[in-house]
Every structure is written in structure tokens, then in C-alpha cells.
């Protein structure tokens, strides 16, 4: 249900791209192994050096689904970054819509990511809905895409998020 037109100010943000954010660590075997422990993933490309050396990649690789983890902000020392990556990087003038809810997201994995790689990303605002009422409250549906690059500025993957930023109904 549409409750208003999109303000010209918000309309202006569509297509805007954030600055780049660099991941705190280079891609590394220890964090890859922790990820594999988390989901009990025995894929030898991730943790078996001998197998991976004989593979088409020539070394272990990062699990594709781990991509966004490489740019997750460090916890200490504190950094002036939002707690979640992506949509909030754009600093949209949304007013009093404090609650973010991820509705859906789609990841595409384009190139392998290896230990030693450095990943950085930026975020583009693809679209923003008018204010809509749902069973959760009142807010905007916001679609953004993260573009992840390696140290050679090759695009290694993307994530498109659909987020609902809302306030509870009064």
C-alpha cells in the first residue's frame, strides 16, 4: 500500500554509489577454516592444501558464500562504520525509520578468491520504494548492490540486498 510519493531528495539517491570500504584482513587460511568448521564443510578446495594445489586453482580458495565476510568491519579498535555492511553505507536521509530487516538477497560469484587477496567493496542504491505499510510497520523497501573487488580491481562478486527500513505502526 502506497502512503506517499517518494521525496525528490530520496529520488536523487537512486543510482548513487558509496565510497570504497576495504576489508580489515587479507583473505587467509585460518578464517577459511573457521568458516568451514561453522557449517562442517569438508570441500577439499577450502582446506586441503595438497588437493587444492592439484586443482585448476593451484591453491586453496575461499568458500564463495564467505565473500561478504572478508569486508566485515573489525570490532576493535572501533571504526566509524555501521554495524552491517552495504545498505547503510549510503547514509540515506530516511528520517525516523530505525529498524532494518533483510527480506532477501542474491549473491553472484564471478572469480575465485584466494589467500593473500585483499577485498574491497562499494554499494550502489538500485531502487527505493515509496513508504509502504506492512504487517511489520511503515517503511521503505531499499534495494542495493555491493560490488566486491580484489587488489587488482577485478570484480569478484556481488550481493544485491532487499531491505525493509521501518518504524513500528503507531
Amino acid at each position, binding site marked *: 500500500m502506497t502512503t506517499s510519493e517518494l521525496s525528490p531528495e530520496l529520488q536523487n539517491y537512486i543510482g548513487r554509489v558509496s565510497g570504497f570500504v576495504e576489508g580489515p584482513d587479507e583473505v587467509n587460511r585460518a*578464517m577459511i577454516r*573457521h*568458516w568451514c*568448521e*561453522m*557449517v*562442517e*564443510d*569438508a*570441500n*577439499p*578446495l577450502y582446506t586441503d592444501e595438497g*588437493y587444492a594445489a592439484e*586443482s585448476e586453482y593451484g591453491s586453496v580458495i575461499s*568458500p*564463495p*558464500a*564467505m565473500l*561478504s*565476510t572478508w569486508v*566485515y*568491519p*573489525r*570490532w576493535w579498535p572501533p571504526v566509524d562504520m555501521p*554495524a*552491517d555492511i552495504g545498505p547503510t553505507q549510503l547514509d540515506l536521509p530516511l528520517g525516523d525509520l530505525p529498524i532494518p530487516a*533483510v*527480506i*532477501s*538477497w*542474491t*549473491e*553472484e*560469484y564471478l572469480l575465485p578468491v584466494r589467500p593473500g587477496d585483499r577485498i574491497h567493496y562499494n554499494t550502489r542504491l538500485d531502487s527505493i520504494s515509496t513508504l509502504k505499510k506492512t504487517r511489520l510497520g511503515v517503511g521503505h523497501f531499499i534495494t542495493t548492490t555491493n560490488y566486491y573487488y580484489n587488489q587488482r580491481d577485478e570484480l569478484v562478486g556481488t550481493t544485491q540486498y532487499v531491505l525493509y527500513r521501518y518504524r513500528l505502526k503507531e
Partner: protein
Amino acid sequence: MTHRRLYWEDVAEGEVIPSVTLEINRNRIVMIVSATRDIFPLHHDPEFAQAAGYRAPAVATAFLQGLLGRCLTDWTGPAGKVRKLGLRLNAPTLAGDTVSAGGKVSRKYVDNGDHKIDCELELIKQDGVIAVDAEATVVVPSRD
């Protein structure tokens, strides 16, 4: 050790992708926070989670994509490449739940020389609630 190697020719549309199941016990909650780096209190703090309306801490979304990724390459073997993974959240996955990731093949086709398989996946909880609907595209080797 030999690894499974799924060939495109051996896949049938409608074929079942076997489920993988994990229990979200306290150790797993700790591992998820540690491995995803997502320390937001909803993911580990029972009081915070309850104040936010959840029975127990809810896992980070990165865990869900990791489990689905594992489900796919457990099935294809390491030669399978996940190219695309789309997820829709229906219900939170909470501490104390047991979740199973599985699905079926929806389509197989050749695209630009790549032998592709589209999959429909679900993450189902112990009570039958579908926590996540997902779709994926994987590229697998051909016998040609």
C-alpha cells in the same frame, strides 16, 4: 581420498539434492559469531534477542548462505561451482533449532559453454517451518 564428481549429463530435472542437517547448539552459536565476524547481540545474547521478540538468539544470515553453499558442493563434489545464490528469509533460525538444507534440480541447460544447473533449495527447521527459500545456479563438469 576420492571425491564425488557430479557430471551435468547425470543430472535430471526434478532430482533431489540431499539434505545436510546441523544443530544450532551453543557451540555453533559461538562458531557462527566467530566465523562470520557478526557480533550483533541478536546473534548471541539471549536477553537482547528476547527483548527484540525472539525466543532465542537468531543466527547471522551469512551462516545460512554458508550452509546452502555446503549443501550444493556436497552434492556436486568440489568440481561444482556455485555461481549464484539467492535467499529469502521467512522465519528466523534460532539457537536450539535444528536446520536442514536441501532441495531439487529445477532446470539444466548450457549457457555460453557452461553446463549449468538451477536448483530450488529450502532451509527447513525441526518443526517443519521453512526458514529460508533459496535458489542457486551451479556449473558442473560435462563428460564431453
